[in-house]
């Protein structure tokens, strides 16, 4: 057996490699740089590597190959779009993360201890968040491009582990934050065990662990359907867990609420893009021809997810939990893009992911700004009268909510329209009906928040809107503008997606 020396296409891997390099530099900074300069250099490195990564991505945007990394990575149009979305969301999220008010001074200190107090007084910072973010981004960039199951699994873990850690780093209500980290971690590990078992069965089914190999087995009909089905089912459990589809959703409200808000925003937006990217790739590439086997189940999950997310969101009193349930509902909507299993479904999903991601980051950015003396105010009742206190902020938040609700002239509407039409086009009438009904339910709670903000009088309980830092301002305003532009004139992006989005096999 001759050893074949591996050939890697570094240009196509550059976006991932740059981010990884940034992360490693960040680790080195943690190790060697004086404390005073860590924050600024970390921030610089992070932004720089994300931007550089984006630039590298732009350079190779028209390329497409299956052997970017010995068959482990499929570099194609859809991948470029997903990676681009993730990078943009990551940059915006980094601006939020840079507001260190969100993070604990010293993660190792016991909450409420003397040590914590001194750490706060001496202005310690957990600058490790930046390399962690970069590691997560690297994993996310790789996740939707993975074209074999090993890479998929590794990428899943690369993106998950930093997130588990980051979830536990909140500055205030640290017990909750740590709890969310624990839950996220345990359940994440639990689901990735399923995922791994799924990989095992897919491998058992086809004898190959590449997506193309599996697809060929599916087409060829060799192998045992039971193994295929078990593989699909278990792999789905892992993937659906990541996107928060019912009944694998339960972690998300708790984690969204407990994690530092900036991290929540990042996680909610970017993870969704990455995970749906992977789902789209694996279902479109490998399982497309076994549609009969998984589609009914997926339709049921999509419908339950939409309805459940919307219905439970109605009763939420915490803004972050509400957004969590909203994201569950959106996961349901996004699943219709998977079910559509068509080019238009793919285009729609990618557009939806981008639009939703941007709006989510913006919305969580705003959540970070509403505070009282003990930190962020999550209780929606205390948001009442926000429109009076800070009309611009409240209006922007309303814009994001309207986008989530899918009101025309916001990006959410275009997304919803395109994804539902794709689903209906492929014959899923039930998805369309459930989608419409749950949108109606969903409108209920989005509007409730708008009512609270604009039509209720402020409660004098110390809730206030802090003046956002420059970076946070950038994030929120860019998100708002993008949300609006994508609602009013989405044609360029849609055309770009339509022309670009393709999965190669």
């Amino acid at each position, binding site marked *: 057996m001759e050893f074949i020396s591996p050939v890697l296409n570094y240009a196509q891997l550059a976006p991932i490699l740059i981010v990884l390099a940034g992360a490693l530099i960040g680790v080195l900074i943690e190790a060697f740089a004086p404390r005073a300069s860590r924050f600024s250099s970390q921030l610089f490195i992070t932004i720089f590597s994300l931007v550089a990564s984006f630039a590298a991505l732009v350079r190779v945007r028209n390329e497409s190959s299956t052997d970017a990394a010995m068959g482990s990575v499929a570099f194609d149009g859809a991948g470029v779009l997903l990676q681009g979305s993730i990078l943009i969301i990551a940059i915006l999220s980094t601006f939020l993360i840079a507001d260190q008010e969100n993070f604990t001074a010293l993660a190792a200190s016991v909450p409420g201890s003397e040590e914590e107090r001194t750490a706060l007084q001496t202005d310690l910072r957990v600058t490790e968040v930046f390399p962690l973010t970069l590691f997560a981004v690297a994993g996310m960039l790789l996740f939707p491009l993975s074209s074999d199951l090993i890479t998929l699994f590794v990428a899943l873990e690369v993106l998950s582990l930093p997130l588990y850690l980051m979830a536990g780093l909140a500055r205030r209500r640290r017990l909750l934050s740590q709890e969310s980290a624990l839950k996220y971690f345990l359940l994440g590990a639990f689901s990735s065990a399923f995922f791994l078992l799924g990989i095992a069965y897919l491998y058992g089914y086809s004898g190959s662990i590449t997506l193309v190999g599996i697809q060929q087995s599916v087409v060829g009909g060799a192998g045992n359907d039971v193994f295929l089905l078990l593989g699909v089912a278990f792999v789905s459990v892992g993937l659906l867990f990541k996107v928060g589809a019912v009944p694998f959703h339960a972690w998300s409200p708790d984690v969204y609420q407990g994690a530092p808000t900036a991290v929540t925003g990042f996680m909610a937006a970017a993870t969704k893009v990455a995970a749906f990217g992977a789902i789209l790739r694996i279902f479109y590439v490998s399982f497309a021809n076994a549609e009969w086997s998984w589609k009914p189940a997926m339709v049921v999950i999509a419908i339950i997810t939409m309805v459940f997310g919307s219905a439970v969101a109605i009763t939420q009193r915490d803004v972050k939990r509400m957004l969590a349930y909203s994201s569950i509902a959106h996961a349901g909507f996004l699943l219709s893009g998977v079910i559509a299993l068509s080019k238009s479904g793919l*285009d729609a999903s990618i557009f939806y992911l981008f639009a939703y991601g941007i709006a989510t980051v913006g919305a969580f950015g705003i959540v970070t700004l509403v505070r009282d003396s003990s930190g962020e105010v999550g209780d929606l009742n205390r948001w009442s009268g926000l*429109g*009076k206190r800070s*009309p611009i902020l409240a209006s922007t938040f309303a814009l994001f909510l*309207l986008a989530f*609700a899918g*009101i*025309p*002239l916001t990006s959410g*509407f*275009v997304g*919803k*329209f*395109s994804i*539902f*039409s794709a689903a*209906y*086009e492929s014959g899923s009438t039930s998805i*369309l*009906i459930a*989608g*419409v*009904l749950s*949108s*109606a339910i969903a*409108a*209920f709670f989005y*509007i*409730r928040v708008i*009512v609270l903000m*604009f*039509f*209720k009088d402020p409660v004098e309980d110390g809730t206030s809107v802090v003046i956002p830092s420059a970076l946070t301002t950038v994030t929120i305003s860019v998100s708002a503008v993008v949300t609006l532009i994508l609602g009013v*004139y*989405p*044609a360029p992006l*849609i*055309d770009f997606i*339509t022309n670009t989005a393709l999965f190669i096999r």
Partner: protein
Amino acid sequence: MNALTTMMLLPILGSLLVAVIPNDQVLRIKQAALGTTLLVAISGVLVWMRFDSANTSFQFTQSVAWIPSFGINYAVGVDGLSLVLILMSVLLAPIVVLAGWNESEGGRWSAKVFYILILVLETMMIGVFAATDVFLFYVIFEAMLIPVYFLIGGYGSGERAAAAVKFLLYSLFGGLLMLASIIGLYVISGRNGGHTFDITKLSEMHNYMSSTTQNLLFLGFFIAFAIKAPVWPLHTWLPDAAASATPGTSVLLLGVLDKVGTFGMIRFCLALFPDASKTFTPIIMTLAVISIIYGAFLAIGATDIKRLIAYTSISHFGFITMGIFAMTAQGHSGATLYMFNHGFSTAALFLVAGWMSARRGSTTIADFGGLQRVTPVMAWSFFIAGMSSLALPGLSSFVSEFLVLVGTFTRYPVAAIIATFGIVLAALYILIPVQKALHGPTTPGNENLPDLNLREKIAIAPVIAVIVALGFYPSPLLNVINPASAHVLELQGFTDPTPSDSAGK
């Protein structure tokens, strides 16, 4: 530049102008708003004069690609039907501004916001009637809800927030059903000659639909419009909204926005789904008749003057709906004319009711009394408006109401007969408040109410002039309407029933 686009741009420019005027120069703001609306009104009249009524196709058309990959265009154009409604909208707008000169006071926000909302709403009002692209229509249809929502919730009285929410949720629900239908149309058009939203092209799609599909899609549209119109039993949002909104907003809400519902029935329900329209006609006729009688009874039972007007509108919308689905030339033209006339007579009623309640500080009918002697001009204005509302011959509503009845009778005599009982009830629901509020002894608290001032007289005069003039000489409008209604009926394959007893001749 296209005349309609210009008309739509003008209010936007006006709102920008309003936006740059400093907050404390309230008078300037109002003047700017009034000037803009007047300008739009003039341009509306110019369009009307340049309109070729013999031509049944869309005129003043413009079509610009908007989202080409979905086949969505910014496409506008008017036929007789939409022209009349646009004319009504742009004529009412300056009147509303002038009449509600001080409405913005006592709102949650500044006068500036109020007028920006009004102007933005005006753009949408023109757009919603001018759109010849179904998607564009839908976008505006939904987006309109937002300014109205804030106008009700921010500047209304009483339970304004709750009413605004009720309005919004109702409308959103309907809108979402319509979205489902639009998606259905989109998909069907995609299968038959490429994705398009062009109303003319879509009107051929019914040939490719199964009757079940057609029925479902029809229902999606119809329920949305029935909520908007509103048709019994989907009406309960209206009294709340109308009672809470400022008089000006109520005028726009009932006078213009609700017409979108009946307009949509003609433009979309009938044109796109002719067979389904026929299938559902018996049910719709029943609902329309119930609306007429039911609305009238509730108006009789109403104790609040604004709610009373709202209920009368339910009755009137029943007439309009009945006329539309009677599928006769008289019914159709009558319904269209009814929309116009109802706009003006309801405007008069609401404006005067608003002035009355502003002076008295109450909207309860029983709180008034003997106003005819204290404030004769105001009382007369109300009286004439009321007479128009009860369709007194010689005033505009009579022509349309009678046309509807006659048109309906030729095809659905029973419906017409029951509906005719509505005119007796109309006498009651108008004369009861007239008797209680205007007649009788002047009750305590009303002795010193000031009569209409010059501004208010200027505002109400054109409304009354239109009411009277059109009662005697409706031809200018009928000439525009008739070809359009004939065209719709021709497309539907309907010819008027020949007189039964002269059939042999």
